């Protein structure tokens, strides 16, 4: 159920250049699933006016804590990055439909492919897949080394490869370059990242089932305003989908890329 809550800041750390890891405590954590997002009002003033959709990176139901990883690049996320421990944050959530975790039986392998600030939701997904006995392979692309994060955390869950556009960390190039070299064996892929990456991945694995998480400018975040519409493919039953409430995760082949 979607709720609005004033969550409390437990921790906030800059884990890479302008990349912040924010942990919040509150009741709504109990409802969260990997791949969902929260809609945050960073200020009670009219500036900025709209909420910011931010993906869920880690869920700790026992502690009632959720961790979000975001890039502070605009006014809204910069204000969020200035929140101190003990501050309250107005959160609406959890929103959207996340990754299907029970798709694979124990012993199968999932390939997780992320790009930049699309990597965070794959962390909770990987944790939950591993908890179910699914093996995970992680292939993540970043622009440069100084904006890369969570290598250690992913490495404890499974085989982890980094690629950077400038070659400052891992292989030089894009995730698809590295996947071409690695030729990983897997059963299902899950991905979150920029549109060109999702497009390339869908073409790269035409015969594998996969799930893609999308990003689009949002208004309400709950499906009422029709801002975050994506066109669908000819095979889809629907004319369009809303990223916020039908997604942000869609099976491969639903959204026209």
């Amino acid at each position: 159920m979607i709720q609005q809550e004033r969550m409390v800041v437990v921790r906030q750390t800059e884990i890479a250049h302008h990349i912040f890891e924010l942990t919040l405590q509150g009741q709504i954590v109990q409802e969260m699933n990997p791949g969902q997002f929260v809609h945050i009002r960073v200020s009670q003033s009219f500036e900025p006016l709209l909420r910011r959709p931010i993906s869920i990176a880690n869920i700790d139901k026992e502690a009632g804590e959720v961790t979000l990883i975001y890039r502070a690049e605009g006014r809204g996320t910069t204000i969020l990055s200035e929140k101190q421990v003990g501050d309250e944050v107005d959160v609406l959530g959890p929103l959207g439909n996340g990754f299907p975790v029970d798709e694979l039986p124990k012993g199968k392998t999932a390939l997780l492919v992320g790009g930049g600030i699309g990597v965070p939701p794959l962390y909770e997904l990987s944790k939950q897949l591993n908890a179910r006995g699914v093996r995970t392979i992680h292939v993540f692309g970043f622009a440069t080394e100084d904006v890369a994060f969570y290598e250690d955390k992913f490495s404890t869950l499974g085989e982890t490869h980094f690629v950077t556009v400038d070659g400052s960390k891992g292989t030089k190039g894009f995730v698809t370059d590295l996947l071409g070299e690695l030729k990983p064996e897997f059963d299902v892929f899950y991905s979150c990242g920029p549109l060109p990456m999702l497009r390339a991945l869908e073409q790269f694995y035409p015969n594998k089932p996969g799930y893609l998480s999308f990003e689009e400018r949002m208004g309400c975040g709950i499906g009422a305003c029709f801002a975050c519409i994506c066109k669908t493919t000819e095979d889809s039953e629907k004319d369009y989908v809303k990223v916020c409430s039908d997604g942000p995760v869609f099976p491969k082949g639903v959204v026209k890329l």
Partner: protein
Amino acid sequence: MSRLSIQLPGLDLKNPIMPASGCFGFGHEYAQLYDLSKLGAIMIKATTVEKRLGNPTPRVAETPAGMLNAIGLQNPGLDKVMSDELPWLEKYDVPIIANVAGTLIEDYVEVARRISTAPNVKALELNISCPNVKHGGITFGTDPVIARELVEAVKAVSKVPVYVKLSPNVTNIVEIAQAVEIAGADGITMINTLIGMRLDERTGKPVIANGTGGLSGPAVKPVAIRMVYDVYKAVDIPIIGMGGVSCVQDVIDFMSAGASAVAVGTANFVDHFVCPNIIDALPKKLEELGVTHIKELIGRSHR
């Protein structure tokens, strides 16, 4: 709650607060959050004869104390609204104001004729002010002669009272208001969004795919208040006011300027519970103002 009730043509409102068209879909999403029966009315998303898929994305852009949108009247079309959306809304004890849009006068007439027969549709809101479609919409709202012709044609077929939603993108809004009153409009809703544009800082090109969009949010409230204030003096039909309403004081301001009821738009995206919160806060506000019934506030700026 009777101190909040308002009677308008076709509308028996428990309270004067309603979500504005285009900001609330057909109610499904907000029904997950609270009981829609709490609302004074619901202005549903614009309905056209055929389904519309709307404009390319990006469709929204944030601006100082506001936002631009160019959704493009996306809706499932009249048949679907009649067969699915309106029957679904019947489970709530709330009057529906159906926003009617089109390209030609015949389109408006067709939607009005059929949608006004739905049992829960208690009034129509003629959308002659949408800035985001290439044909129709705002072109009807900027020429008093055409506006009058359209209203007369719709009035001739509608089974329920007809309100006309005015555009602020005109030199003289009073002239349009008077034209639709003469044509037989039962009420006015105002204002729709102001046409605006935001440029991308790097490329210098418009952020919204449509180029222009409609500006809404707190930034437009002073414009809306001025227009309600002027139109109230010039017409005898009631006004439902809107434009940047986000708190109980904004409601008081619109009613003081001359609105009989108030719609909440963009604020629904910021505080998803804003409508019920305002409704709950109104009685206390009336106490503070020393007012017995909310209707005493209507037009007090002019007394």
